[in-house]
């Protein structure tokens, strides 16, 4: 109730008293959502840990069928995209419309590159019969069964991660439209910050997935 400017702001929703309160709510909400997300991946991390302990050799053998180069390439792409995302948030906070547009487009480009590489990797697994199911073939028969579990975990984890990337790209597109209209200013930039948090979270998940899936047995 202290800042009349804030009250009159067009972006203040009716049930909040101040823009500050509104932003606090959004931030807390986003962090809680990310906590949920973490637990969502947590179930799969548990499955990963269990089977890696059960089938350590098969895990190494199966992991060698993943291309470390493309995995690392994607890791770099995502780290860069986190950087450009941070710059987009900064641009919003300083009210730079041009900056927002440039950095949002860059972030989206890097995200698209990631998904493109991922699609290529998936296609490659498909060609080599490494997709779990009746058509699954593994060169070393000793490890065939456990390797299928490895690839099940691989597809489940990277698939759910990729789904998050796709949703993230959708959110970025929505931000871009808002940025072009000049919606986000130094006073009101909560959506940009929130999507930023989400995007960083998705990147961090990948930073765990990359070594766990691609680098098993590389010492």
């Amino acid at each position, binding site marked *: 109730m202290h800042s009349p400017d804030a009250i009159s702001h067009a972006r203040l929703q009716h049930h909040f008293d101040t823009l500050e309160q509104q932003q606090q709510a959004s931030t807390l909400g986003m962090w809680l959502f990310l906590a949920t997300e973490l637990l969502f991946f947590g179930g799969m991390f548990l499955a990963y840990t269990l089977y890696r302990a059960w089938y350590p050799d098969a895990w190494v053998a199966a992991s060698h069928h993943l291309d470390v180069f493309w995995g690392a390439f994607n890791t770099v792409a995502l780290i860069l995209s986190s950087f450009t995302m941070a710059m987009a948030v900064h641009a919003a906070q300083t009210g730079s419309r041009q900056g927002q547009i440039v950095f949002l487009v860059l972030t989206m480009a890097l995200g698209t590159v990631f998904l493109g590489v991922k699609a290529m990797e998936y296609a490659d697994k498909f060609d080599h019969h490494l997709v779990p199911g009746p058509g699954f073939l593994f060169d070393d028969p000793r490890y065939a*069964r456990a390797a299928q579990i490895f690839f099940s975990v691989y597809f489940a984890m990277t698939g759910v991660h990729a789904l998050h990337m796709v949703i993230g790209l959708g959110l970025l597109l929505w931000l871009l439209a808002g940025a072009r209209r000049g919606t986000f200013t130094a006073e009101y930039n909560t959506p940009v910050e929130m999507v930023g948090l989400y995007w960083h979270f998705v990147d961090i998940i990948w930073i765990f997935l990359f070594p766990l899936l691609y680098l098993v047995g590389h010492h």
Partner: protein
Amino acid sequence: MQTAAAPEPSNYLNVAHTVKSWLLTRDHKRIAILYLLGITFFFAVGGLFALGIRLELLTPAGDLFESETYNKLFTMHGVAMVFFFLLPSIPATLGNFLVPMMIGAKDLAFPRINLLSWYVYMIGGLFTLAAALLGGVDTGWTFYTPYSTAASNTHVVLTGVGVFISGFSSILTGLNFIVTIHTMRAPGMTWDRLPLFIWSHYAASIIMILGTPVVAIAVLLVALERLFHIGIFDPNLGGDPVLYQHLFWYYSHPAVYVMVLPGMGVISELVAAFARKAVFGYKFVAYSSLGIAVIGFFVWGHHMYVSSQSIYAGLLFSILTYTVAIPSAIKVFNWTATLYKGSISFESPMIYVFGFIGLFLVGGLTGLYLGAMGLDVHVHDTYFIVAHFHYVMVGATIMAYMGGLHYWWPKITGRMYSEGWAKFAALTIFVGFNLTFFPQFILGYLGMPRRYHMYPPEFQVLNVLSTAGATVLGVGYAVPLIYFTWSFFRGARAPANPWGATGLEWQTPSPPPLENFTTPPVVTQPAYAYAEENAVA
């Protein structure tokens, strides 16, 4: 007091009457009513399935339904009741309506997300209903692998998708509550002045956002395994069926607290209001909710003493299980002590409170039998378990839910209901419930396994008793539906504060105006500040 002729002041119910104004509403009070309709529907659906189960068990032979049909009945009974009635029951209706009002806010922090959560819930419900109509599912509501992934040829995926989707509704509600309680309290509404209803919803919300995603991923993996045979839970492909049980119970045990914690919050409010006295040991009751929520996450393995889990893991789960019993005991003792030197009246909500205490005593104390590893071996997966969890999740929770509904009904609808019928229903439910489920404890100790379509003849008498009780219980649950419906349209107008209770929700008209309060409330007193001079006329 209004006279009959005076025009009704504007409130959240009469501002608009179109269907669209309901389906697109962002008002937490209207969304609470949408949820009320949804969960009442699923309660009726689940109740019909229960009716089928109880009718079949009248005779030992299994002569009413095919085994397959019976298996589908108890599965769909469990799925409908747990995921679409019990979990959302109190939080999504009373919680939705009251969390903002009790802390003096105009709405929940994210009204659109709140509406979204209702749609998500309904879509999940429709998937599950579709699965039921297309032929049903027969895995039990627990979806244990490898039966659910490799053996069952029913609609597991469709049901699983329904459960998965509805899980997000729970996550969104929990998230909304936590953010609202943190950021939207009225001036002066400090944490130690929060009504205990708020504390218990806060604790339940923590479980909703940290537990639900794990069961979601478990159900998702079951669906993937069924569709693509990926081998995560299938021992023939090298997977571990017991991993599923860990993932499932990691959520589904705390889920019990999602049902019962909000119920405990309701009971705290009602005890204070009908004893006109502050709840004894406010801080202990408040923190015990958090204690239950936190410890509750570490007891899931007590569902798995005979699953081939290591006995040392079992020991740990057993001792934690006994630890989590203490906060519940603290609550019961504090409610009892609250009555001491109170000014106790016996309106229908209070009758439900007595019913709750009775059923919760039985349900909670029988938990002690199950925590004891050596004893659990015998009663695990028997009717003893069935009776125990019905006492807690159904008996106690629904008593609290009904008590809360009767208590806040005048606020929600602006109408009074028939006090006589309400008391009749409370008594009927209490008697019917005990008659239904108490014999099941005896059956369980005798060794009758759960999910049995046919059973040895010596168990028949107890089963007949149980079915007779279920009939009484059915009447008890149906009667309020009638007098509440009547009250909604024809009931006498309710005053702003019919019970003379404290709490911000009673300081605004019934039904409340659009943004809940005509003037923004400022809080100067702790919760339940009953005193002669404050007594509301």
